[in-house]
């Protein structure tokens, strides 16, 4: 599945990542903009898709970048988002198996796994370091609440992966060379 992207130049990858990351961040946090379906977390799924497509290094660096972006946009501290993004990208890259059916299966299962783990993990972390002066709630209450939101997150994750994958396909679209096209026309024309 991902073999078609294997020879894309580094600069082009960086440019596409940059454009997609900024676009996703702007759409995701658009003020007053509501989704009628579960909100896709693009910035969380971006390193995952990059890792599954290009490998661990891309996943790691993009995870750090999108993690920082998440923290810049809506967190009271720096670290957990970047750490989370980094490991999501790394694991996605490690599980990558280009051009096999396994890869397709992992493309479906990994976002679901991330959606299941992410919210409860962040909820637990928030009880340790709340944005106010006082501890806001206990861990058990936070985890119970987080788990009720997991099905929506799973659906949102699948939507996000599909949209990011589409953006990657557009960004890394490779036109067939004129010579190849000409040769094919000659063959077809006899």
């Amino acid at each position, binding site marked *: 599945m991902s073999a078609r992207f294997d020879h894309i130049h580094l600069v082009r990858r960086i440019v596409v990542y940059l454009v997609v990351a*900024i*676009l996703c*961040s*702007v759409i*995701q*946090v*658009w*003020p*007053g*903009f*509501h989704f009628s379906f579960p*909100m896709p*977390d693009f*910035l*969380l799924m971006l390193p995952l898709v990059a890792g599954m497509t*290009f*490998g*661990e*290094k*891309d996943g*790691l660096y993009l995870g*750090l970048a999108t993690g*920082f*972006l*998440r*923290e*810049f*946009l*809506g*967190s*009271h*501290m*720096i*670290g*957990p*988002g*970047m*750490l989370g993004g*980094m490991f999501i990208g*790394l694991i996605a*890259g490690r599980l990558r198996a280009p051009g096999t059916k396994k890869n397709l299966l992992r493309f479906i299962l990994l976002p679901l796994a991330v959606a299941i783990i*992410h*919210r409860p993990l*962040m*909820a637990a*972390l*928030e009880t340790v*370091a*709340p*944005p*106010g*002066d*006082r501890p*806001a*709630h206990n861990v058990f*209450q*936070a985890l119970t*609440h*987080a788990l009720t*939101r997991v099905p929506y997150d799973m659906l949102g994750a699948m939507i996000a992966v599909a949209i990011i994958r589409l953006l990657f396909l557009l960004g890394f679209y490779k036109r067939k060379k004129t010579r190849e096209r000409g040769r094919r026309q000659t063959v077809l024309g006899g």
Partner: protein
Amino acid sequence: MNRRRPRVILIVLLTVLLAAAMVITVMPSSSRTKLASFFGRVYDPVADFIRTGCRRVGDYFGAIGENRRLAGEITSLQEENAQLRQDLMQYRRKAESFDLLKDNLNLKTEFDRYTIVGGEVLNRSVGPMFDLFRINLGNEDGIMTSSDRSYPVLDHRRCLVGRIQSAERRTSRVLPLTHEAFAVSATIQGRTGIPFRVRGDLKYRDKGLCIADNFSPGTPVRIGDVVITSGAGGLFAEGIVIGEIIDVTRSPETQTISCVIKPTSVGENLRYVFVLTEKKEGTDRP
């Protein structure tokens, strides 16, 4: 393949560094705001460019669609315009008279002690743990936060939205009213009483509601009562509308009351906000 695999030492190093950053930046008055200020100078214009572009494209197509409908309304609007101009002139005269009366009688009006600074919501919350939203007002607009200093944030109807959590040079992060780390001293509008606490609650956050507790025994509370800030504590001005009581729970064993409040502010649909900053003596600017 190995070329694309990062070294283990790099991963360990990054993990340690980020864990350290997490500990450092969670502390009050950390250097997190400086880093965010610096990054904001690059990110905000780019994001703003995309937003403006999208809005313009949307406006363009919207304008084409509405062009025909608008043509029919022009005539009626012209008549209305003439009427409004006449009203405006009358209101101007009334406003001048009111200012004169206010100065002569030395009247104090709502939020007179404060300067109201208007701003735009830059982005809403991202998700769990990343649930603050950003506005385009910062240190340059007189917003200087510290561990014991913050500012109330209101919407266009002067209803409470939240408070400033941290401020950078040109932007600030707002902790919303429904967030479980938010708490404010409140009272019921139109009734003198001992203040109680209004706070966000994890259970109600997704529904856009908050709760009121810490009532003194015998406090009369009814569904439909409007809750306002009491002014106790000094952080929030007195009389800012918080919301309306939609449910009251009385515990017979502990004799305690708790209420569910529906905030009057527009919540996630918010586009513009107003921050109340304390006015410096003898100036109109904060």
